[in-house]
C-alpha cells in the first residue's frame, strides 16, 4: 500500500530522531558508568 508520508511528519521525524539519538547516547554513557568495574558488557 502507498501512503502519504506528509512533509510536516517527515520534518518532525528528523527532529525526533535527532533528539532520541542524543538521548540514547547519554543513556548508554550512564549505563556504562553504572556497570560495576570488571563486569562484562552484555
Amino acid at each position, binding site marked *: 500500500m502507498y501512503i502519504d*508520508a506528509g512533509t510536516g511528519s517527515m520534518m518532525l*521525524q528528523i*527532529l525526533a530522531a535527532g533528539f532520541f539519538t542524543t538521548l540514547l547516547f547519554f543513556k548508554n554513557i550512564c549505563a556504562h558508568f553504572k556497570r560495576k568495574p570488571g563486569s562484562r558488557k552484555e
Partner: protein
Amino acid sequence: MENISASFRDPAGYVFEKDGGLYRQILPYGKSAFEQFLQSGLAEKLMSAGKLAAFRLEAENERGPVLRLSRIPYITYPYEWSFSQLRDAALLTLDVTREALSCGMILKDASAFNVAFHHCRPLFLDHTSFEVYEEGMPWRAYRQFTMHFLAPLLLMKKVDLRCLGLLREDIGGIPLDLASRLLPWHTWLQPNPLLHIHLHALMEQKYSSDKKTQTPKRLPKKRLLALLEVMADWLDAMKPPRQSTEWAKYYSDNSYSDESFTFKQQAVNEFCTKNRVRSCIDLGANCGIFTKIAAEYADTVIAADYDACAVEALYQLGKNEQADIQPVLLDLNNPSPDIGVLNVERDSFFKRTHADRVLGLALVHHLRVTGNWSISQIATLFDKLAPQALIEFVPLDDVQTQRLTRGREEIYQDWTLDNFRAAFMEKFKYCEAKPIPQSGRVLLVFSK
C-alpha cells in the same frame, strides 16, 4: 477467481482467492522490490522467526510472481483488539522495520491492518509492504504508524480504553490533531507523547498550509534506528491501563453456588467433547473460563466480549495457554459493520464469522432486557453463527435478570423458557434441556 477487496490500494500486488486457495499476485510495479525481498534473505528470516505469514512461490505469469499464502483461520481488525494486542502489533511492525533495514529494505507502510493474530501471536501479513532502502531516506510510514498505533494506544492509556473505537470511525488511523486535543494536558510534559503526537500534529498543520514543496531532508540510518529503538522500548514498557469493570470479574463475583457452577462447567465440557471441531464461538466470553474448555476441543475459538478488560484477559489467556483464541471486542448491539471504500474494504463481524459451534452463557437475558432484542432476533443470531449452540437461559425471576429489569418486569413477560425454546426450534432441529441445580437457569443444547 475473487479479488480480496482489502488489498485494492496496493499498486505492487493484490490478494485473490481461487479454488479455495489464497494467492497474492505481484504486479510489475512491485516486482523488483519483491525480488530484493527474496534475494536479501529478509522473507526467509521473517518467516522462520514466525513474524511473517508464510507463503511459497506458486507460479509466474506475464505480470509477475504468484504466491500461495497460508490462510489465517480468523481475521480480527484493530478496532476489535485489546490494548496489549495493539501494542504487540505495533512492536511487531517496528521489529519488522528494523529487520528490513538490516537487509537493505524498509517498510513503506505501517498499517495496523497489516497485522493478524494466530495463536495469540502477531503476524505480519503484507508481503508487498517492503521497498528498497536508500541511505538517508526518512521512514515514509512514520506518520501512519503514529496514527494507527501510537495515537490509539496513548488515548486508551491516558483517556479511556473505549477510545479504540475511533479506529473504526477512521480506517486511515486517528488524526493527530484530534489525538492531540483529546490527550490530557500533562502529556505535553512527557517526551514521547510530546514529540510523536503534539508536536507532530503542529508540524502537520504548519506544513499543510505551506504552498512551497519542501524537499525532505536526509535522515541518517543510525538516527532512524535510534528512533525505532526508543519507540520500541517505550511501547514495550507500556502496560495496559488498570480499569476495573464488572465483566472482567464476572465469575469471581456472581450468583452461582459451587454446585451449579461445577454443573455448568461439566455441561460445557460435555457439549465440546462430542467431537473436535475447527472453530467455536464464545459469545460474552468474559475472562474465558469456558473459552478455555472450548479451546481444548476446537482449533480456533473466537471469544467475543464487549468489555475491553475482558478482551485483554482473553488475550492473556490465549498467550498463556498457547491456544488459538481470537479475542474480539464486540458489542452485539452494534457489531463491526462493513466499512471502508464502497463498504467492502473490511468485512462486518457476521460476514467473517461462522463456526461449528457457539456458546452463549449468561448472555441472552442481557440481549432481551438491556438490548431489547426480541426472542426471535436472539434465535436468528445463533442460527447465523453455527449449527450447534449451547445457551444458558436465565429466567425473569433470576437475581441477575431482576437487576437488569429494575421493576419493569411487565415489559418482558414473553421471556419464558417455552417461548425461548419455541423460537429456537424454528431455526434448529433438536433441543436438549439441562436445568442447573440450585438455580432457575437452564442450559439448552440446540443442533440442526
